[in-house]
């Protein structure tokens, strides 16, 4: 195979294959070095399609470089490295190998030059992310993993239907910008949006991620939704439907996170909220907006993984995952607390953090296009993010009441992983031009103007005031909140049971008909075949009797003569 055809993703695939057989230090070396090697390979990919190979009657282009694709592949590889560092001492090798296959899928999608390659890597992600969910190891993780797999395989089928449709109608498998105008393009859009956790099928994310292991959820938070954002940027820039979808996700994420008690589920809902910002930006579709979507995805992976890491450390050290059971952990977990607060400030787009320098690109794009409602809702959502993730999460985990828990702080490798990502959150916030330089379009935007900073400080600090004044309303309860997944977890089984009851008379009728026909058959067999177990000749029925051999020979002769006669006639 030509070297140009080798996607950097294959390095991660090779690493994933080796992780199992390798032992001890060798495994650690593979886990830590493979993502760095991949990162190097990502930057060796020049712009444009590298080479193509003929498969059936299509030109497959496994590697296509562009600034946007390299940006996403970079953060995926970086995520795999820091995630590997965070996990390698705690996670089982099966989970690590699955996570590396999963990362390989994400990097493969980043460079996929055609729809078929994209689909193959897309499904690789679906399969191995399911394994990562299953690695939670609990019955709940198994059940959630099955629901997750069903939904993602369904999403894959929808995407495939769309790809086939586009290929049949245009004859091309090229990845080119399109709008959702016909059945095929709608199917592609829906297939991608399922992975982006867009409504109505967003419940899989908050259902599955919190059931995975403390290390697994770090990987899960990074890849699936962000590859969906990349696919949207590549295929549907400026698709107006996405603005509405994104705004819905933004608000939905906040409301559900406010209701939630499970610490990782709060974070899972805030993934939906943040991806909503990106989806909305892709919908706006200007160069500034697409830059914003890409930059925000980059920053988001870092601070969201950081938040999941701090939650993972808490769960690993205390074995508890509910706000109502936690609190006061700042006393013995200073590193985790500080890293968590940095992540929380970043997600809230606080000035001097990465969230501020990337999310404000999206708001600015909305303002430039004169989209007053979009701008106002995104601003309201920024306030809401501070409320549910920026303050609520650290407050309930590390402060609020004293839960009496005195766990030790993070193990060194987990602490190091959190510190690396905390540093990146701050660096990208203080030196935004480091990231702006690598965005797909030239950036003519100044993140820090006194007016902008003051506006955000007012917005966020008064959201903080609202949080503490409304604290009595936010007392955590031992509850979950119903989501769309109620439809298939409770609704569908209830409908099935109801239908079962409705069909009971028919089933009874069937049963009585069955027993009647059985009785008839029994009567007929007794009548004609007799009772084989009875030795007495007289008691046997007509077909069960023994006949003399002469009679049989006579009958055969008669039948043969009849046959000969009929043949001549």
């Amino acid at each position, binding site marked *: 195979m030509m070297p140009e055809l080798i996607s950097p993703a294959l390095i991660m695939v090779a690493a994933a294959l080796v992780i199992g057989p390798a032992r001890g230090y060798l495994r650690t070396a593979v886990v830590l070095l493979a993502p760095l090697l991949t990162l190097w390979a990502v930057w060796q990919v020049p712009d444009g399609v590298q080479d193509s190979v003929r498969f059936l009657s299509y030109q497959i282009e496994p590697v296509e470089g562009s600034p946007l694709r390299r940006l996403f592949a970079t953060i995926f590889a970086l995520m795999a490295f820091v995630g590997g560092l965070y996990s390698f001492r705690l996670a089982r090798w099966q989970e690590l190998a699955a996570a590396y296959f999963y990362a390989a899928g994400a990097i493969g999608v980043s460079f996929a030059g055609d729809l078929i390659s994209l689909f193959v890597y897309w499904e690789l992600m679906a399969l191995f992310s399911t394994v990562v969910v299953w690695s939670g190891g609990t*019955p709940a993780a198994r*059940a959630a993993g099955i629901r997750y797999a069903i939904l993602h395989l369904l999403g894959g089928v929808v995407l495939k239907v769309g790809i086939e449709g586009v290929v049949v109608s245009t004859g091309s498998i090229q990845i080119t910008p399109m709008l959702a105008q016909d059945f095929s393009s709608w199917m592609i859009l829906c297939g991608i949006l399922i992975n982006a956790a867009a409504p109505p099928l967003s419940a899989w994310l908050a259902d599955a991620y919190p059931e995975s292991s403390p290390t697994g959820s770090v990987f899960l938070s990074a890849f699936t939704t962000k590859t969906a954002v990349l696919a949207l940027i590549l295929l549907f820039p400026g698709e107006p439907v996405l603005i509405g979808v994104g705004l819905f996700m933004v608000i939905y994420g*906040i*409301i559900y996170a*406010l*209701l939630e*008690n499970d610490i990782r589920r709060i974070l899972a809902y805030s993934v939906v909220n943040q991806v909503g910002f990106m989806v909305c930006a892709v919908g706006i579709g200007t160069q500034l907006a697409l830059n914003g979507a890409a930059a925000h995805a980059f920053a988001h992976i870092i601070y969201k993984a950081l938040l999941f890491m701090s939650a993972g450390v808490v769960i690993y050290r205390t074995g508890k995952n*509910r706000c109502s059971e936690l609190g*006061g952990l*700042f*006393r013995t977990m200073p590193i985790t607390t500080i890293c968590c607060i940095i992540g929380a400030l970043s997600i809230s787009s606080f000035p001097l953090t990465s969230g501020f320098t990337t999310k404000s690109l999206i708001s600015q794009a909305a*303002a430039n296009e004169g989209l*007053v409602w979009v*701008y*106002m809702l995104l*601003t*309201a959502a920024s*306030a*809401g993010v501070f*409320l549910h993730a920026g303050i609520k999460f650290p407050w309930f985990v590390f*402060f*609020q*009441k*004293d839960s009496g828990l005195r766990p030790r702080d993070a193990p060194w490798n987990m602490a190091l992983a959190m510190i690396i990502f905390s540093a990146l959150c701050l660096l990208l916030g203080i030196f935004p031009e480091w990231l702006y330089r690598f965005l797909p379009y030239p950036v003519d935007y100044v993140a820090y*103007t*006194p*007016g*902008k900073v*003051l*506006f*955000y*400080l*007012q*917005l*966020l*600090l*008064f*959201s*903080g*005031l*609202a*949080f503490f004044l*409304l*604290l009595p*309303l*936010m007392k955590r*309860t*031992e*509850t*979950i*909140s*119903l*989501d769309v997944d109620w439809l298939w*977890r*409770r609704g569908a*089984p209830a409908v099935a049971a109801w239908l079962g009851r409705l069909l009971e008379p028919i089933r009874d009728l069937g049963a009585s008909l069955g027993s009647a026909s059985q009785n008839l058959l029994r009567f007929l067999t007794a009548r004609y075949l007799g009772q084989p177990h009875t030795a007495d000749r007289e008691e046997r029925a007509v077909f069960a009797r023994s006949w003399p051999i002469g009679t049989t020979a006579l009958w055969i002769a008669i039948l043969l003569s009849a046959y000969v006669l009929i043949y001549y006639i």
Partner: protein
Amino acid sequence: MTDREDGHWLTRPTSIRKLWWGFSTLLALTVLAQLVVYVKGYFTVDGWFGFGAIYGFLCCLAMVLFAKALGFILKRRSDYYLERDDDA
């Protein structure tokens, strides 16, 4: 809200009172700063004096109340889905 027995400085009522004072001063300053710092409004209203503060506060109030109301409909006990698995 806090535990007074373990004596960590952050949990003492006096420190909490000080924190509230500090925080309130900070809030007041961010609003007053708009007297000297020009905040560009893209849609007129967002350039008004103290708009960010009021908008942020009211939005959070609305979202918390909306979530609370929705909670009455959507909230179930934590073992809501588990019960069914036990039955099965």
